[in-house]
């Protein structure tokens, strides 16, 4: 088998043991390639455990800029004997295996169609370091040095990154650089050259490299959230922690040194959403970040906020469900649970960002929409966007932008004799006016409750009063349709009867799959939906095609169900393409599935499923 030869276009996967300190070394590897102007797309694949279980870090090196997972591995850095067989099996024919050869393995442990690169890492560490923890940690840096030699990564770039990393701990700088050179020197002298390589390029441009949770947290800072109440849950915890970090830097009153924010780690998810409801009721912008099980717990309060019409922003970083499901794996399976959260008839606004750039933008949008619509707004991300660093367009903010605080009636307006009926639809958009507590000594106070009431907030169990409010809430939801981010259409180069709809983190894999299908003669128009309620463009897109593939990462086709329900579309027209094993969807999977379906509909693919 001919060894794979590829420059700036391959996949490296690190197989490690959770808790062995490999994360920062692996990230260093990915960033060094990025600094050489070559886009990378890294992904953490980790267990729900602190120490001992297998963990992986997959880096796709891609000058073409494909940021989805490709599938397959060209170079496996196999540092975990526990997963040896599975790791070996993932290597592409002609690929490479790098392993710790302190105790050399017999030929039977390898595959004939791959190249094996053995390096006695443990032996080198034991000969250099006395301290067991140092032996463990520097082993990781040593293999980064070795890979730098094998892949021709500029050592100076890595040294600069190490210098940045240890700016505040200069004592650690020299030992890390030393370990890096140990690895580099050994590989240069004792390992054969391989067919993979990184060359300086100019394909990164002005893009930034950040994870979605940090981006959403920053969006909350910019969007004016002053109260954050949260309860730790993977994969959303780092969002609240990032909010804390940004607030400490950006939200301190320069004159007094005191905080213009409050962050409460609540006793549970119920209390966290309760605090957000209280703050929203009292006119501060507030949010919580959680994941599926948290959403389940919050349901009663979400219903209260919907019915009592209180601004609430909920960030749901989705993971594998149901129940505890796969806490550290990704899915898009909370869509229905959020769209209809709580008992009774509810419909909630969902925002669906594709990458950290949109996480930032949509977080600020969510805070605006919650105030404008006086209702819960869900920002739906997932572990794949939330916890993995991704290349994306830099953040942007217009200083002329003003927060949309919605319809809040002031004391002056009440004095001027404006009729105040808390639940009265005076503007025809379904959105009533509200007053904040203590607005006026004698006017505008009202009683907020989850029980039925009339347009003036007076307790009422009269059927017509209840129906009036429920209809108005529908009207409000319809108003939301024109306020949420519009879907993005990407037309095929030639007219086609086939379309595909997708959303969120599926985006980069989808883009690559469409290109691959195109190369195979299958043309597809695509529509990326960015919010629910769906703007009319979604219905028009479906009407304009004979058949539409709905690509999503859950078992039951939840986006498809929402679309069918929203527009009364014949489900047979919408073909589900579903991926839900907990790993991020790959371009290979999408192109393969659509190619297969397309074949069944009489479309002949030239090489269905060929990707990258």
């Amino acid at each position, binding site marked *: 088998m001919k060894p794979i030869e590829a420059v700036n276009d391959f996949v490296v996967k690190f197989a490690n043991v959770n808790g062995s300190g490999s994360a920062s070394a692996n990230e260093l590897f990915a960033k060094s390639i990025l600094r050489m102007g070559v886009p990378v797309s890294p992904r953490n694949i980790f267990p729900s455990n602190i120490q001992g279980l297998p963990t992986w870090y997959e880096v796709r090196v891609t000058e073409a800029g494909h940021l989805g997972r490709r599938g397959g591995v060209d170079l496996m850095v196999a540092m975990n004997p526990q997963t040896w067989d599975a790791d070996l099996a993932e290597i592409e024919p002609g690929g490479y295996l790098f392993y710790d050869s302190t105790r050399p393995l017999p030929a039977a442990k390898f595959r004939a169609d791959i190249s094996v690169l053995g390096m006695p890492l443990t032996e080198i560490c034991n000969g250099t370091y006395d301290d067991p923890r140092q032996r463990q940690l520097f082993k990781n840096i040593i293999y980064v040095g070795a890979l730098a030699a094998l892949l021709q990564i500029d050592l100076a770039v890595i040294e600069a990154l190490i210098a940045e990393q240890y700016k505040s701990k200069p004592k650690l700088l020299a030992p890390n650089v030393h370990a890096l050179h140990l690895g580099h020197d050994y590989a240069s002298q004792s390992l054969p050259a391989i067919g993979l390589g990184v060359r300086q390029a100019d394909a*990164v441009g*002005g*893009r*930034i490299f*950040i994870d979605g949770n940090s981006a959403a947290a920053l969006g909350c*800072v910019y969007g*004016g959230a*002053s*109260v954050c109440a949260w309860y730790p849950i993977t994969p959303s915890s780092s969002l609240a922690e990032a909010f804390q970090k940004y607030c400490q830097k*950006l*939200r301190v*009153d320069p004159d007094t040194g*005191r*905080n*213009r*924010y*409050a962050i*409460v780690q609540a*006793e549970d998810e*119920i*209390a*966290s*959403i*309760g*605090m*957000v*409801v*209280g*703050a*929203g*009721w*009292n*006119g*501060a*912008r*507030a949010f919580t970040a959680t994941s599926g099980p948290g959403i389940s717990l919050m349901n*009663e309060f979400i219903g*209260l906020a919907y019915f009592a019409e209180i601004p609430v922003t909920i960030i749901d970083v989705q993971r594998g469900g149901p129940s505890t499901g796969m806490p550290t794996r990704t899915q898009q399976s909370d869509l229905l649970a959020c769209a209809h959260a709580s008992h009774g008839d509810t419909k909630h606004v969902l925002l669906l960002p594709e990458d950290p750039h949109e996480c930032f933008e949509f977080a600020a949008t969510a805070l605006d929409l919650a105030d404008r619509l006086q209702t819960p707004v869900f920002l739906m991300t997932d572990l794949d966007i939330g916890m993995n660093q991704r290349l994306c367009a*830099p*953040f*942007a*903010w*217009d*200083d002329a*932008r003003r*927060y949309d605080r919605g319809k809040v009636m002031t004391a002056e307006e009440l004095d001027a004799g404006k009729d105040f009926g808390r639940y009265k639809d005076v503007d025809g958009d379904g959105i009533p006016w509200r*007053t*904040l*507590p*203590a607005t006026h*000594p*004698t006017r505008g*106070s009202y*009683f*907020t*409750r*989850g*029980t039925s009431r009339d347009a003036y907030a*007076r*307790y009422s169990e009269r059927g017509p009063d209840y129906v009036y409010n429920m209809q108005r809430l529908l009207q409000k939801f319809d108003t939301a349709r024109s306020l949420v981010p519009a879907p993005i259409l990407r037309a095929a180069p030639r007219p086609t009867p086939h379309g595909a709809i997708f959303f969120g983190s599926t985006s980069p894999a989808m883009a690559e799959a469409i290109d691959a299908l195109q190369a195979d003669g299958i043309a597809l128009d695509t529509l990326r939906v960015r919010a629910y309620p769906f703007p009319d463009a979604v219905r028009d897109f479906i009407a304009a095609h004979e058949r539409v593939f709905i690509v999503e990462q859950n078992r039951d086709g939840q986006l498809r169900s929402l679309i069918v329900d929203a527009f009364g579309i014949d489900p047979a027209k919408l073909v589900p393409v579903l991926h839900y094993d907990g790993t991020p969807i790959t371009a290979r999977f999408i192109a393969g599935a659509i190619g297969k379906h397309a074949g069944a509909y009489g479309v002949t693919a030239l090489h269905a499923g060929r990707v990258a």
Partner: protein
Amino acid sequence: MTYIAKPKLHHPTLACNAIGYTRRDYEGKVSTLCAGCGHDSISAAIIQACWELDIEPHRVAKLSGIGCSSKTPDYFLGQSHGFNTVHGRMPSVLTGANLANRTLLYLGVSGDGDSASIGLGQFAHVMRRGVDMTYIVENNGVYGLTKGQFSATADPGSVSKKGVTNTDSPLDMVGMALMLGASFVARGFSGDKRQLVPLIKAAIAHKGAAFIDVISPCVAFNNHAGSTKSYEYVREHNEAVNRLDIMPARTEITVDYADGDTIEVEQHDGSVLRLHKLHTDYDAHDRVGAMNYLQAHQAKGEVVTGLLYVDPEARDLHAHLDTVDAPFNTLGERELCPGAAVLEKINKGLR
């Protein structure tokens, strides 16, 4: 809950307080609770306390959970915003509301079902966080609104109207509040307005988590012989440790109350609590002593009432979080948004 508003006609000679409001200005809608319900007496005491303290009614935010007691905020302070939240989870909503605007007075009204059963978790955490509020539990030992089931404060051995005997041990809300770190802990009795009104006034003046457990007999389901939450029982077994006056900051109210031993406790807002000791060995500054006293008297079947503990130096949640004085709900883009130039720097750091 009612939609019957009280007529707004005031007698022209009704007395006004220092800010020109009559007592009627502190009332709410007509109560729909049973005639004789202890909760209505508590509403009346709240009205009296706020009127006497010269509080602008609209500066109070009144929050409750679900249940008979939680309906009551509709029956007082009609000019203030009320919020009937979900069962047992009022404390978190009150916490969020308080974070949004620290300048209002927060009044949490709850019941023993709401706070001691479903809401025990949130009750515990709102106390330990030191949220600045007055938290009143209207404690009748029974679920009234669902017609007579036991709450977690029900007496062991008591028999419900359906004939079920309670075999669980009761929770003591006062003992828990002391243990959880509440900085003002009191117990009152709905039938003793002379004691209850000053307790509510002192709780409102207190900067921190103030808790009052008010025994409030349920005339429909728990006012029978053998109940420790009946009018008769509490009247007979009331063990008041002190009586109280309060002189709020910025007013000149003085009350001469010659009654045995008297101590004054200055709150950090300048208000003065004047405690008239009925039991000279009782020290309301001693948290552990209060717990012991309570337990010892409870074992004798006595209901200890009065101000049981106060920490005049209490710090509230805003102090813990070191937040700015300005209410968060008044902060705008200038205070909250770091701006495009800062964002550009952040972008640079991410390359």
